[in-house]
């Protein structure tokens, strides 16, 4: 603590600050899983940047976009996309686990069970994924 901390602190005292080691999250599997869940955001952030870059190349014409597509065929890029998919699926699993805790639906005296809220989200996930895949195959791939 700095010497003038008593000026910033209206109460002149020395609070006890419990030390926490920087590797606290390695100590049990719940903490490790928590960190893994938080870490899913790193590859997904990179994926979002990759998409922006792809849009930029698309705006620069067909040759530039084809260059970007060729780069996406590199084995390391394919591996990166597999990692992104795995990270996003892990995120989805944990996200749907916690939504019933935030999304509490009451119908009169009846509280919609957590299981239903969760199942609804899984249903939505399947429908959204299938719909986007079909739309892409029909309108983005579309050779015709």
């Amino acid at each position: 603590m700095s010497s003038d901390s008593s000026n910033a602190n209206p109460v002149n005292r020395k609070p006890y600050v419990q030390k926490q080691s920087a590797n606290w999250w390695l100590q049990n599997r719940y903490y490790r899983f928590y960190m893994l869940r938080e870490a899913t955001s790193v590859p997904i952030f990179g994926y979002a940047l990759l998409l922006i870059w792809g849009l930029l190349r698309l705006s620069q014409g067909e040759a530039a976009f084809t260059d970007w597509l060729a780069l996406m065929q590199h084995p390391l890029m394919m591996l990166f996309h597999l990692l992104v998919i795995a990270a996003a699926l892990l995120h989805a699993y944990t996200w749907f686990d916690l939504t019933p805790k935030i999304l509490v639906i009451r119908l009169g005296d009846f509280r919609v069970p957590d299981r239903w809220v969760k199942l609804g989200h899984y249903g939505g996930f399947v429908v959204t994924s299938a719909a986007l895949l079909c739309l892409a195959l029909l309108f983005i791939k579309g050779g015709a």
Partner: protein
Amino acid sequence: MSNAIDNSTNPKRYGRSHEPIAWSLFGAGGMVVAFIIPVLALISGLLMPSWPADSLYQNLLGLTQSWLGKLALLAVISLTLYHCAHRIYHGLHDLHVEANQTLMLVLFYGGATLCSAVCAGVLLII
């Protein structure tokens, strides 16, 4: 130097928290990442590169030149960025990465905002 408490020169000030705005963007982004990113990464990363390039270019140009397409892409990309920036910001705190808090806020939420602005700019000129 006196240690006496002088609230007239050093009033206790409560700044407004950034959390409500940051958390709503994080929450909306969490939904987008859960529902859309898995299938989007499958399409854009694993399927699209092997699709016929000339019609793919025309179709994607058509998508990004429609207002619905522009809006959807911007929403998905920017909410994903805000979601991830929020997680990385708090994750670094958990990992005891000590840095100036204002700098970290500007770096992460500002970075997500800047990247979203670039994305919006590209979508506007496309």
